[in-house]
């Protein structure tokens, strides 16, 4: 469950306040809104990458407002993906598990499981150079899921992909979410994407975040 309670964030000239939402456990929430409305800022506040000036971030019942990103266990796929340029795909999947000192055999098991689910077994020993957009997205997604977080936040993860790849990845996201019961917050501009994924719809406009009925997405 993701709860934001009267959240206020300030960075430079940008300021937003009074942001509240409650995404129930296991729901797939989509957040939409125009450019510069603060969608990314909200995700960063959930991950702990952006200090909040007031209000609370509560994840699965824990108030994590003052906790460091490392101690929040939120899977994060940023808009620019933030892949590790010096690592292989396997390195990405192993990273969070190595940090957690997971036994080697369990890491290997998890890596092949992720590669299987994401359909990138043959890419495991490749570096980031030369991966296609869709492949890079899968790596970023696999890395975020590797340590089995209960919360996943994604910032326009399917942007800049061709339509076929986007459809395939939408399907993949839906499957993963159904099977793992992850509470997901997905930021997007695309109504098509929102239609095929959302259980819950949030819109941010002029600094106000509101929940809207899914019927607003009807074509």
């Amino acid at each position: 469950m993701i709860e934001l309670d009267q959240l206020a964030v300030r960075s430079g000239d940008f300021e937003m306040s009074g942001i509240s939402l409650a995404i129930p456990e296991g729901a797939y929430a989509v957040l939409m809104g125009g450019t510069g409305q603060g969608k990314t800022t909200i995700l960063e506040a959930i991950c702990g990458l952006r200090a909040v000036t007031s209000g609370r971030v509560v994840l699965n019942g824990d108030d994590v407002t003052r906790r460091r990103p490392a101690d929040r266990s939120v899977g994060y796929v940023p808009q620019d993906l933030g892949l590790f340029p010096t690592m292989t795909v396997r390195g990405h999947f192993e990273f969070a598990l190595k940090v957690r000192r997971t036994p080697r055999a369990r890491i290997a098991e998890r890596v092949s499981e992720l590669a299987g689910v994401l359909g990138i077994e043959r890419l495991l020993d490749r570096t980031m150079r030369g991966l296609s957009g869709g492949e890079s997205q899968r790596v970023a997604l696999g890395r975020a899921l590797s340590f089995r977080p209960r919360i996943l936040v994604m910032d326009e993860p399917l942007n800049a992909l061709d339509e076929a790849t986007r459809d395939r990845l939408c399907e993949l996201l839906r499957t993963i979410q159904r099977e793992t019961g992850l509470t997901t917050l997905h930021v997007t501009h695309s109504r098509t994407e929102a239609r095929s994924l959302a259980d819950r719809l949030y819109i941010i406009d002029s600094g106000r975040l509101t929940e809207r009925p899914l019927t607003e997405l009807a074509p």
Partner: protein
Amino acid sequence: MTPPRAVPPPHRAGSDVPFLVVMGGLGGSYVVLIVALLAADLAFTSPGHFAEALRKPEIQAAIELTLVSCTVSALLSVWVATPLGYLLSRFAFRGRWLVDTIIDIPVVLPPLVIGLSLLILFHLPLGGTNLEELIQRRLGFRVTYAEPAVVLAQFAVACAFAVQTMRVTFDQIDARPEQVALTLGCRRSQAFLHVALPQAWRGIVAATTIAWARSLGEFGPILVFAGATRMRTEVLSTTVFLELSVGQLEAAVAVSLMMVLAAMGVLGVVRLAGARVAR
């Protein structure tokens, strides 16, 4: 019927040659100057001068001290510059501008002043003693007018250049992957060691070589702080000065050319590392 309108002549932009000649002429003059300097040195000296210079025990000792001191000061510089460059690049802390300005002081200050300041620092009365005496008593070695002074004088200037290089290096490395690493459960140290540092190796190579080259060229601060005692604190830059001062122009030129070769070797390493260095 109206008469057909006159068609204007098609536009022609004219030649780019004058522009390229002026730019090439102005820019090329500097390249010509450097080549002329080196050519003059080469014309002045001969393999015989080289061999003679290399046979002198003072010059052999100077070569050895130069190689050791430059390497030690370059390694020290990078050891310090990597964390400092990272902090300045990644953290917007209060007073960062002040740290930035302080680090630039050795870059803009005449090197001689750095040497003088080092000398004063080590001999400033400090509760009945001074830093030099304290080090001699506690650690058992001399600094001023000894080998450690050579390294310290080189380090004091070279490190500033290494910091600039490392700062630019980390500025050019996207911070996002490190942020993601934090969300994956890393401490900042782990994100630095496993994500940022492996991307910075070209910058580290560049910073090391730049610090090495700066150390090689250091003269003023070494003269003031370490002296120019033959067989003891003489490095190649002081050799040139000492040989000149006793009228041994041929030896001075031969040693200068050795330094040119060493500097070109270092620059070659920088180019090979492909590092984009701001200065």
